[in-house]
């Protein structure tokens, strides 16, 4: 069960990380270069990653793993 939980945490953390880095990149790109095309493609990456997160949450919802997570003391961790 622990392995499954770890994988779930990992699967969420990685897209979140990519979102974070891309958001920073988008900000910096607009501030420094004003390259709007570039910025748009960066936002698209962010949106794709958001969908990825959403999918992970969806599979979680559909598995018995939710119950295990509920009973776990670290259940609230993202």
């Amino acid at each position, binding site marked *: 069960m622990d392995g499954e939980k770890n994988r779930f945490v990992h699967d969420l953390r990685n897209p979140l*990380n*990519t*979102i*974070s*880095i891309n958001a920073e990149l988008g900000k910096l790109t607009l501030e420094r270069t004003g390259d709007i095309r570039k910025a748009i493609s960066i936002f698209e990456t962010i949106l794709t990653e958001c969908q990825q997160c959403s999918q992970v949450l969806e599979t979680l919802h559909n598995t018995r793993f939710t119950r295990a997570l509920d009973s776990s003391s670290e259940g609230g961790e993202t």
Partner: protein
Amino acid sequence: MADVLLVDDDKRFLDATVQLLGLLGHSVTAADSVAQARELISKNVYTHMILDLILPDGSGLHLLEALPTPNTTKITLITGHPSVKSIVKNLYGSNIGYLIKPIDLQQLESLFEEKKLAFAKSESSIKLHFGYLVGESAPMRHLYEMIERVAATKANVMLLGESGVGKEMVAAAIHYASQVEGDYVAANCGAFSRELINSELFGHEKGAFTGATHRKIGVFEQANKGTLFLDEITEMPIDLQPNLLRVLETQKVTRLGATTSVDIEGRVVSATNRTEQDMAVQGCLREDLYFRLAVFPIHIPPLRARKEDIPLLVQHFLAGFNQEYNGAIGINDESMKRLIDYDWPGNVRELRHAIHRAYIMADQQQKVLVLPENLTSPFSKVAHQSQAGIRVGKTVEEVERELIESTLEHFDGDKKQAADILGISLKTLYNRLNSYGNVEL
């Protein structure tokens, strides 16, 4: 600007971070596996390495072992959870930074700002050969070739060279170049007491002798499948040398008090500051042991035979001290010339000591090293003087001549003072000097 190696298998994260660091003005190389990163490390020098802990072909931590030591690369681990920090700290020391996911710009920037000053100053461009050795002179090139050749074999090596030439560094370099699975273990045969030498080398079982309260693993076993460095091998008592010989011949170690032996393999690198001739004449090493240990003898050149390496060594030591003290001290041409001109009887060790001292005395306004008036080390004088003096076999004339010359040297050539001290007339002194053929003295 930093030279960054970024290792992560998440391609989207890798792409974005490369661009982000690029916008911040750093030069970034990306790798998505341990193997790729390992290859890059072997060919390039990076100021920073940012690593994912878990990669498809292994742990990012393996790369830390692949880095040459000592190195100035700032290591940062990307981790999902801060708890990794304490584990890694125990394993690899505290000199490692962390990026906690999700990573934001502030975290990334702090990585470079924190050390920006220190790096601008301490970054050493001096190439380290086999992770330890500095120098590009012909004698050193020859040494590197010898190391490379012997690293490919299992032969035992004996390092010969004056005190301070860096025998332990060469031993560590041989271990590094050999890429063996076992550890590098160094032991100084001159430092063990006579009673304990066998137990240090071969280990003992609990209760083997009074005071043996627990089992001890000797250095031979510790260095199994690795490299055992035995420094000052010629200082080992001659009657204890057969024990060492037996272990080398049988490749088996029996701990004191044990009934069974343990198989060992690995390379023994021994070292001495005596010459081969000295060893033979003075009989401080058994001949049979010499042939076991010196399958491949390597002579390490004294510093005065590779003076062109002095600037490189000085820069290397300076970079080290600058990093240690977080300073930005340099050296002017005049000081460098003095360092190159000096003879360095204590070799690289003496040079390092001189730089350390000059670093402490450095002119903080000008940011340059301040060398002492006189570079001569007290020990080089002692060594010189010990050659003089009375020894059986010297003629009275020789002793007298040495006495007169040393006295004159002491008074900077003042013959009147020398004659007074020696209790002879000035005329006698001149007569003696005339007979030596150096009236100019």
